[in-house]
């Protein structure tokens, strides 16, 4: 049976690529063009994007190195190997908190956008509740299944993004991109912060590394997975600026959704494409939230191995609901998101880098045979 049970708990390289992209592509595509346009002049945001993407690739590479160094080990085990059990527990706890808050943020953000574009009177509380119910169902299964879900959902999202872009191609105006290179360096660097944040999320694969069946290929997979969102961000940003111009982008809450809004399918069966666009978008937000939730549970289970997965799901769901209901307005949601991003940067990126450094210095390596 062993050889045949095609990785029920094993994660293939393709799953990692898709999972990383799906994890990264979340709200970023919807909000990033606005924050970039607000901080930079004209279309210069792409420089910040490239810098942010570069930073993400570097950290992705470091994380991949760490993964390859400790094959078949999750972050807790790695920390245990490098430092000791107590540190490992602290790290797992921090990570669990981070991903837990992340799920809350994601849920709330989703409810917020759906309210704006799909509903009028339906309270956000209800939207969150339904989403959480589906989320609970999704997380109740094995992690591998969740990761495989990416293989179905990511193409859907990519198709819809490209559909929106191609249908907008007639509105694209090269003149809007000009002038080039007019933002000064400080602003560009400031804007980079936002772009770096939008690449957060893939660090959860430090935990999934425990089931990756080819740890050696992790490097390629993570970098490949990061390249997709980088490309999407770039092309979406250029399109948004090219179509709306910098000023409008700055003043539109979700420029990408607005892009979908002005699509009119000629002779089409549907008008108001943004509803469809957004509906599909729910899919990727679901996947991001589900993976984060999954990692929360994995991290918690390394701390408290006793309770079953289902128990965790049932107990965490109401908590997530409470967390997601805390911010009162769009600005508060944004602030909430920013905090989480800082936490992610520290826990998800810098910490593994430190870990890798210590491991290199102490010459600690994971189990060789497992690879």
């Amino acid at each position, binding site marked *: 049976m062993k050889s045949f049970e095609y990785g029920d708990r094993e994660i293939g390289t393709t799953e990692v690529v898709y999972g990383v992209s799906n994890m990264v592509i979340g709200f970023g595509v919807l909000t990033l063009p606005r924050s970039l346009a607000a901080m930079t002049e004209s279309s210069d945001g792409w420089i910040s994007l490239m810098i942010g993407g570069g930073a993400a690739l570097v950290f992705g590479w470091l994380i991949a190195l760490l993964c390859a160094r400790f094959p078949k080990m999750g972050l807790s085990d790695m920390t245990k190997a490098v430092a000791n059990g107590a540190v490992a527990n602290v790290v797992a706890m921090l990570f669990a908190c981070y991903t837990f808050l992340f799920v809350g943020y994601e849920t709330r953000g989703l409810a917020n956008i759906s309210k704006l574009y799909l509903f009028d009177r339906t309270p956000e509380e209800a939207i969150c509740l339904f989403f959480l119910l589906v989320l609970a169902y999704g997380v109740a299964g094995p992690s591998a299944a969740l990761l495989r879900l990416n293989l179905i959902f990511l193409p859907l999202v990519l198709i819809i993004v490209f559909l929106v872009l191609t249908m907008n191609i007639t509105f694209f105006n090269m003149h809007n991109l000009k002038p080039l290179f007019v933002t000064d360096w400080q602003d560009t660097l400031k804007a980079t912060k936002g772009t770096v944040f939008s690449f957060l999320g893939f660090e959860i694969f430090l935990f999934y590394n425990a089931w990756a069946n080819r740890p050696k290929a992790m490097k390629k997979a993570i970098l490949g997975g990061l390249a997709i969102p980088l490309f999407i961000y770039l092309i979406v940003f250029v399109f948004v600026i090219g179509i709306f111009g910098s000023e409008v982008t700055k003043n539109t809450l979700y420029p990408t959704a607005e892009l979908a809004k002005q699509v009119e399918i000629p002779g089409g069966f549907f008008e*108001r494409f943004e*509803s469809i666009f957004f509906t599909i978008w729910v899919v990727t937000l679901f996947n991001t939230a589900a993976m984060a939730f999954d990692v929360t549970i994995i991290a918690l289970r390394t701390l408290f191995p006793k309770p079953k997965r289902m128990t965790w799901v049932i107990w965490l769901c109401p908590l997530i609901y409470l967390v997601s209901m805390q911010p009162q307005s769009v600005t508060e949601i944004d602030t909430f998101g920013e905090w989480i991003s800082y936490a992610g940067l520290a826990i998800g990126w810098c910490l593994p880098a430190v870990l890798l450094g210590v491991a290199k210095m102490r010459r600690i390596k994971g189990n060789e045979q497992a690879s």
Partner: protein
Amino acid sequence: MSESASDDKRGESYVFPDMQENIGHIRRMLGDPADLVIRIISIGGGERSCALAFLSGLSDKAVIDEQIVRQILKAGRFGQEDTGMDISEVLGGLRNETMSVSQVLEVNLWSDVIKAVLYGDTAMFLEGADDVLLIGTQNWKERSIDEPPTEALVRGPREGFTEKIETNIGLIRRGIRDMNLRFVSYTIGRRSRKTLILTYIQGIIHPAIVEEARRRLDTIDIDDAPESGFIEQWIEDSFLSPFPQLLHTERPDKVRAALLQGKAAVMLEGTPFALILPTTFVALIQSPEDYYERWLIGSLIRLLRYLAVIIALFAPAIYIALVSFHQGMIPFKLAFSIAAAREGVPFPAIIEAMVMEGTLELLREAGVRLPKPIGQTIGIVGGLVIGEAAVQAGVVSPIMVIIVAVTAISSFAIPSYSAGIAFRMLRFATMLAAGILGLFGIILTFIMISTHLVRLRSFGMPYSAPFAPMFITDWRDLVIRSPVTFLTKRPEFIQTKNINRANKRGKRS
């Protein structure tokens, strides 16, 4: 009567040497049924005699008359008592020189005898012998090999399985003349004692699938399995899932194709429906005709079926969502005409849709159950009710009628009947979700269905393969059915032991 052998209560009871005693015993065991025929013949007209016992409905009278009774009557040299042959030699002689029947066994256990007689064989008791001859005379009035009514094709072989398992085995063998074709037989049913055959091709199939299938088949313990549906439900992975995890088919060509892909099949005596395992979601939407037609046509038809699945699942839900929630998405003029059409309709769209879809299901069910001549009435009544009258009465809008019709047609376009039912069932869930949350509800149900599909497994195989996990080489026979010359590999996701099924066109090696 002396119970010399049969009083051994723990173990087996043996056949008595005395013929009359045996006759009495078999009568008692079966409760002296009306169809039990006992024929006592003196061999070759001599002193020695024997008795034939068989059940008249299950055995071939012609064979018994011509090949057994007649031969025994002619076998004079075994009939005399003073030939110096001992009794077992006589039995052997009768077996080897007299019977012109291919299948003859010599047994001495009562359980074997009873079982054989119940299967339609003839038992021959020779006066004074310790053994019994079991002569293969099974004959069951069998349906001829017809075109399978539930899976008719425009192009393709016109043969279907029958209720007789030997015929079915033959039908498979006739298409795959490979010595590695394996038939493992099981006896299912404590009382019905039916034959169940697990078939696969050794060397192609992954051994773990066979192992898993055998493990699950071994667990079956039931008094009777009237149809392969029982087997399916006993060995499937998840009984909560609406999706069939084993594919049932009446078509031998479909089973043969599956075997060659590295799958296994289960056939049960008494039903023409074989089960194919493992099954994937994609297999539900494929039909053998995709391969018989040229690839462009096959691919188009396949695309059409994917479309049918989407329509069958989501069309009424989308209608509800658009009409009750997102009117802005309906184009200008269409919106007004829908609004005008719905002007007099007293129900919200969700109720309207539920009522209409419910009526459709009722009609379908009634149509299936009714005898053919009355069945037409249902068509007329249904057509009137669903169509004209409902609209005229202002109960539903004309658009709804169109939606109902389209979904009905789409759900019947799905080749697997049980998958069609699954989709129709889920359709009500999507409609409900759309009624509560509009498009958002639809996408949430879509997420749930996808999650379920990805999680589901059939005999350890991921149900959503080759989509997730992805096997890119299998994609050439997925949505698009590539030309036959390109389909040189067996499906990768089944992890066959033997990968190549053809050489590239023009290259022989």
